């Protein structure tokens, strides 16, 4: 659980395939080994091995979101966050961006992503 001030947000950075994503660290209960039978988050792209999982508390209890690796938590100033541009509507779980220098990192709402995963 983050104790960050409102000006700082803890972002958990993880990888799916060759892509890096971020998520609100407070949505992640723990990081574990992926259990058998958990579904892929296909919208984030194909997994390489997907041996790790982010455990998230969803509406139906705990659920796993498989990932390839977890880079760690980055305490990020709000000034480095950006909303999604109006012309870049896509998956509703992609809620915005963290600007890593000039490189946008897509921020995923993991609870919404769980809903999307259930709908696949």
């Amino acid at each position, binding site marked *: 659980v983050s104790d960050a001030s409102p000006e700082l947000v803890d972002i958990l950075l993880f990888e799916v395939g060759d892509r890096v994503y971020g998520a609100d660290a407070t949505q992640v209960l723990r990081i574990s080994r992926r259990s058998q039978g958990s579904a892929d988050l296909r919208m984030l792209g194909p997994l390489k091995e997907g041996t790790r999982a982010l455990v998230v508390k969803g509406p139906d209890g705990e659920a796993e979101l498989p990932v390839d690796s977890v880079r760690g938590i980055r305490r990020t100033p709000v000034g480095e966050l950006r909303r999604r541009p109006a*012309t870049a509507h*896509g998956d509703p779980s992609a809620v915005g961006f963290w600007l890593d220098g000039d490189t*946008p990192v897509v921020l995923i709402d993991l609870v919404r992503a769980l809903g999307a995963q259930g709908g696949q």
Partner: protein
Amino acid sequence: LDPTPLSRALEVAPERAVAEKATPEQEFFCFRTGELQLGVPSENVREVVRAGPLTPLPRVPPFILGVAGHRGEVLPVLDLLRFLGKGEARVTSKTRLFIGTSGGYVTAVIADQILGLLRIPVSEIVPPPMGGDAASEHLLGVFRPGQKEAALSLVNFSKLLHAARQRAVSR
């Protein structure tokens, strides 16, 4: 004294320089993408930058190649070839992005080659061909610089950006 040719000429000389009859012109930013030569009203173009790494986005329309960061902004990157159904852009080290704006919306657009700014007499812009493909609905018209030169399709960028946004939202 008989008037000299010079004095006669001075009698009919104008008081000040006379401008030629003004011809309304419009300035277009011209570029090539794939086989298309396109022009966008220059007031819709903010700047041109080299294409850096693009961040793909989940479940966006195929004509949005991803987003790019530029001076603290996150900009969607639009592939006009895909949007107009004319193929697919290939992003290489030579690819450029022009930053286009309309009505408060900003987007980056893929360009293979920048042709420059061109002032075109409005009278020489002909309407897009009747019965043309779906792409022609996004055109202001067509300009043919010379008999041997390829026609320049002039894009209604404001309408195109609005349509792109509508398509993205309605998915």
